[in-house]
């Protein structure tokens, strides 16, 4: 795949907790950026779905967060750090269907317990680190074919 990329590209978005009306904006902009440099459509789809789920988690659970992306000729890496409550039991949180989202979040269409599994499913490497009371960092890499 010939990408229109001569040097590494990186960027950062700030995310604000509770702000549902602009939720997804960062992921959408990233989607356009990847399209601009000619990344394969299916790869874009995977990267944006994974990013969007991570972005929504910050909106739902945290006070604020940052989304960093690093695009190289070989891959895209996305790191999302938040100042949130942290995840008590990561193993449990990775289980499909498990969610600690309150009812009002479920009424908005989120908190089905599919977020972290969707992120993992769509990335080639996926790591999540969390400290209760401090925050969570998710790092995902999607390789270009």
């Amino acid at each position, binding site marked *: 795949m010939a990408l229109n990329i001569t040097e590494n590209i990186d960027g950062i978005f700030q995310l604000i907790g509770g702000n*549902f009306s602009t939720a997804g904006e960062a992921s959408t902009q990233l989607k356009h950026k990847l399209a601009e440099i000619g990344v394969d459509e299916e790869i874009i*789809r995977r990267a*944006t*779905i994974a990013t969007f789920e991570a972005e929504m988690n910050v909106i739902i659970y945290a006070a604020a967060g940052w989304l960093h992306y690093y695009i190289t000729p070989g891959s895209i890496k996305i790191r999302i750090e938040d100042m949130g409550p942290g995840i008590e039991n990561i193993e449990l949180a990775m289980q499909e269907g498990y969610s600690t989202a309150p009812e009002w979040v*479920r009424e*908005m269409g989120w908190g089905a317990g599919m977020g972290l599994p969707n992120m993992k499913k769509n990335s080639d490497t996926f790591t999540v680190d969390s400290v209760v009371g401090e925050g969570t960092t998710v790092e995902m890499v999607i390789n270009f074919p």
Partner: protein
Amino acid sequence: MTLKKIAEILDATIISDSDDLNVQILNACSADMMSAVLYYHTPNSLLITGLTQPHVIRTAEIAGIKTIVFVLNKKPDALTIDLAKQKKIPLLSTPCCMYTASGRLFSAGLPGCLTK
């Protein structure tokens, strides 16, 4: 199946009239939970949902959804409509509930979205 045909089957009103009614829809996904939409493979799909907020439009854009139909006569606010116009995602509103809307379209031959 065209958007026009879908609107007929569901007695639906088209919310933004600038949209191309001949756009082809390949299959459908019924959900209120947005992660379910993101879980399935939905390029060129129809989304049948009961939620009308802007993040539904963004989910649709990210998932490649072609059209959204809101059930139970729900109408989105101006912010959501503007965003949908910007993203070129036509919006419909049907008096049917999600069950009837899904049932009618399935019976008319529209398949479910791919699960991979």
